């Protein structure tokens, strides 16, 4: 649209989300929460006061990260956190970074164990 002025962004721009608290999900599965300060056509974003929200089962922890520049190719989804609503279910328990790391490792080990057990069962080819 050549008559559109320089400030007219295409319909899916993130301009409406500027200075809002957002949830950014990355391709590696991380969830970052922060205030959107800048973006571009590649969905590169600048997140201020960002924290990584780690959730394992009923436990969660917010690790402070500071000012982040995220390369757009890693972005999966950018969600607007409704300030009126609870960000997490109320039954969830906040724990320390050390505890959440331990819980993450336990979850990883359990998945690995399930994986090796499944491989063994598949080898036996029980029908």
């Amino acid at each position, binding site marked *: 649209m050549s008559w559109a002025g320089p400030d007219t962004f295409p*319909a*899916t721009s993130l301009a409406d989300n500027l200075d809002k608290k957002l949830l950014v999900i990355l391709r590696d599965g991380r*969830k970052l929460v922060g205030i959107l300060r800048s973006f571009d056509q590649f*969905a590169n974003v600048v997140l201020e006061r960002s924290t990584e929200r780690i959730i394992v089962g009923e436990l969660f922890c917010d690790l402070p990260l500071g000012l982040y520049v995220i390369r757009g190719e890693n972005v999966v989804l*950018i*969600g607007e*956190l409704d300030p009126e609503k*609870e960000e997490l279910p109320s039954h969830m328990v906040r724990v320390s970074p050390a505890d959440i790391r331990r819980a993450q490792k336990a979850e990883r080990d359990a998945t690995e164990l399930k994986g090796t057990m499944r491989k063994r069962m598949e080898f036996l080819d029980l029908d």
Partner: protein
Amino acid sequence: MLFFSYFKELVGKEVTVELKNDLAITGTLHSVDQYLNIKLENTRVVDEAKYPHMLSVKNCFIRGSVVRYVQLPPDGVDVDILHDATRREARGT
């Protein structure tokens, strides 16, 4: 450009977007762009218990490159018009 135009026709309809990371989100299609980035409103995650961090997210921007499927309402497609547009586009290239 064909799918961009096609999605523009679907703005306002309920769709379910399944992402490559297996997350599935249902919402009203708010807007789409040339990269097929999608903005959804009134979103709810299909398997809510698995993604508690999305609880208070009601509007979201989804990068086009991470979309696997866009599930449409069964009456959302006028197959004849789509066929014609596809043939026209194929002839153009």
